[in-house]
């Protein structure tokens, strides 16, 4: 069992990193990566939403959708779960950390449409994980997301300080950076663990 968990963890964080290998959740990855602090905050929010979402969506899938033979409603049911969770996170953040709340801005409610969150729920059901594994899968996928966005924001902070040729300044260099980091993560795809 421990081995299975390790496989899931390594797979979700490094080998099939949600952002850099599967290219899910690119919107917040580019949007809130200007400073490491907000990137970390975004990572935490996404971690919470993804972990709890994969827990609840497993229950919804197994005990509601499958018994009633309405699996075709998977997407809409999952989105319902995710949006409710995001709303909850928003309420909590606004109360506990107004600074982070305003720094995340529009990207906070946009976690709802973060395809990484929906992706993790759908992938977990496709892989046939049980409740524990689904939750862990969600958690580690979110850790992978956090890792990617924090790494990226660090590089971006560094680039802000350096001399960039005028045509590349701002977003273009950010996209190039993202591409190079993704290329680096391709190195992990050589691993095969089972």
């Amino acid at each position, binding site marked *: 069992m421990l081995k299975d968990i390790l496989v899931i963890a390594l797979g979700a964080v490094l080998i099939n990193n949600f952002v850099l290998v599967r290219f899910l959740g690119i919107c917040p990855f580019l949007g809130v990566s200007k400073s490491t602090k907000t990137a970390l905050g975004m990572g935490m929010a996404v971690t919470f939403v993804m972990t709890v979402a994969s827990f609840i969506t497993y229950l*919804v899938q197994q005990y509601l959708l499958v018994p009633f033979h309405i699996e075709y*409603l998977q997407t809409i*049911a999952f989105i*319902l779960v995710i949006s409710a969770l995001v*709303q*909850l996170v928003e309420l909590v953040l606004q109360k506990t950390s107004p600074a982070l709340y305003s720094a995340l801005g529009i990207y906070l409610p946009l976690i709802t449409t973060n395809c990484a969150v929906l992706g993790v729920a759908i992938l977990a059901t496709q892989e046939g994980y049980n409740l524990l594994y689904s939750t862990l899968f969600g958690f580690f996928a979110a850790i992978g997301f956090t890792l990617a966005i924090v790494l990226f924001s660090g590089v971006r902070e560094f680039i802000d300080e350096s001399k960039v040729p005028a045509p590349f300044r701002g977003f273009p260099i950010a996209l190039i950076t993202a591409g190079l980091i993704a290329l680096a993560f391709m190195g992990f795809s050589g691993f095969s663990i089972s």
Partner: protein
Amino acid sequence: MNSILYSFAVLGSLGLLFGLLLAFASGIFKVETDERVEEITALLPGANCGGCGYPGCSALAAAIADGTAAIDTCSVAKKEQIDKIAKIMNVDAGTQSLKKVAVVLCSGTCDKISRKYEYDGIRDCRALTRLGGGEKDCISGCAGYGTCVSHCRFDAIAIKDGVAEVDREKCVGCGVCVAVCPKKVIALVPKKEAKAVLCNNHDKGAAVRTYCATGCIGCGICKKTCEHDAIALENNLAVIDAEKCTNCGACAEKCPRKVIHQIG
């Protein structure tokens, strides 16, 4: 038929459940927000010019609602808007100070001032000023290459005959031109009818005479003439306090250099 019912029931109950949960959570995590902030933000111009010193209109609105900023801090907002903000904040709008507008303290137009050299570089006062303080012999006067014009967001300033001129109707007093002018020849004055010494030169009178046909020589005749104690001499330059000036015009008449002009 059943599958329609099931899907309806499942999604409906899920939605209801989450709705109830969120309603419950919003009760726990309620944040007290100041409604006045949004009302004030709506009244501010929304140009986010930064002239007030706050990062954007909403930040100023928050400061006004807090009471840390005066209700008329925004120099762009019209009188009606300020009155409405005063109403929201429950304070008397009558006590607010006069609006300010920019004025260019130079009347050294092309025909009145001699030049050191002909400038043929970048059309920008800051670049020009680096070359020996500019092409005009007077180092304090308006350079006339329109750095203020290109920075004005309200199209309120123009170069006329080698000297910048502010359109007092359009000027909102944001102070961007004051900050950007390398000659520091632009000042913010209260928006009222007054006289002003349109000169920024602190050189001795004899020196001023050699290169400018109108610059202030600091003779002090205006100071003696003024009955309202509104004029002071600072380093060979007469300065009129617009707050005290009654616009009587006695000083302008007596000025041997005709450098005191009507503003407003």
